[in-house]
């Protein structure tokens, strides 16, 4: 009894611990409250009543899920990109089991020396063809140069005639 009075005074001074306050709550919510403490029963009943109060409306559980969709696609694209890069790297790095070969006139040639010689010969032919094909173009260049020279000469003659005409007009 005396202990409970002390505890109650300590409580109102704000000095009780949570454990001591638990003792007080249990006492005041029980059926064994002494008549001299009866006044304070309402206080602890009020706290108990408030603790049972809950938020009525449901909280936002949907919104986070909607945001998750965005993250899902970001993750999917990232992982697909990484997987594709790995496959490509393996394909480039992986040693070929078959030897090199060439196809000439629809036939498979496994002899690399023959294939190389054949390729060189064909490239020489192409080179020669190009050289022959470009020869007329070289003649065209020479012709153009001659034309330019004669045009320049014509310009000089024209200037001389104009000059002569001027001199004649002055003399007249």
């Amino acid at each position, binding site marked *: 009894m005396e202990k409970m009075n002390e505890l109650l005074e300590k*409580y*109102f*001074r*704000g*000095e009780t611990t*949570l454990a001591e*306050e*638990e003792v007080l709550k249990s006492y005041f919510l029980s059926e064994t409250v002494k008549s001299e403490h009866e*006044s*304070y029963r*309402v*206080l602890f*009943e*009020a*706290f108990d*009543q*408030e*603790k049972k*109060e*809950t*938020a*009525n*409306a449901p*909280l*936002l*559980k949907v*919104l*986070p*899920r909607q*945001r*998750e969709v965005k993250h899902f696609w970001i993750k999917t694209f990232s992982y697909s990109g990484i997987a594709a890069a790995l496959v490509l790297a393996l394909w480039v790095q992986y040693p070929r089991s078959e030897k090199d070969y060439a196809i000439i006139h629809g036939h498979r040639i496994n002899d690399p020396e023959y294939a190389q010689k054949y390729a060189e010969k064909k490239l020489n032919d192409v080179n020669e063809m190009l050289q022959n094909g470009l020869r007329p173009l070289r003649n065209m260049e020479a012709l153009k140069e001659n034309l330019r020279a004669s045009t320049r000469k014509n310009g000089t003659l024209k200037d001389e005639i104009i000059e002569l005409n001027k001199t004649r007009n002055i003399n007249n």
Partner: protein
Amino acid sequence: MSDVRCSIFLRHYKCMDTNQFNAQILTLSDKLFRLAKSILCNAEAAQDAVQELSLKLWEKRSKLDEVENVPAFTMRAMRNLCLDTIRQQRDADELPAEMEFVEPNPHQQIEQKDLVTRVRKMIDELPELQRTIIRMRDVEGMEIAEIAYVTSLTENAVSVNLSRARQKIRERIIYEQKRVEETVWKR
């Protein structure tokens, strides 16, 4: 003070997903609602405040991962949001500065027949800081250090305010009971 306390509450965690968020924040919704209702003195406004806070916390959940004591951090955020709401309403002259203790008229006395309801109203009539502290301690069972973090006060200041709040309620309960006894004697 709060910086030192903040550093105690901060710790690194891995990124929080939906389930973790639901587990940590949404389970606190009743506690947050009670705190908001105590500060705003309005159940509907309290519900809106809790919704607003949970949205804000979801948007900033990456920062929430660094918080060690999520319940205390969330309670602090809830109180700050409610105080901002009160400030905005006060600027718009929608709310009185603070509710005052007024002796109930006969009509109110009939309404507040239940003494427990009257005690709850007495708590509502305390200054915001005192009613928040008394409820965090006596309803939610929070440690003084946690209340100090939520209210940005020292532990000593919390104890002083807690004591004042309890003393005021004690005086009013005694006053109420004397008045009831006098009424009975007069009859």
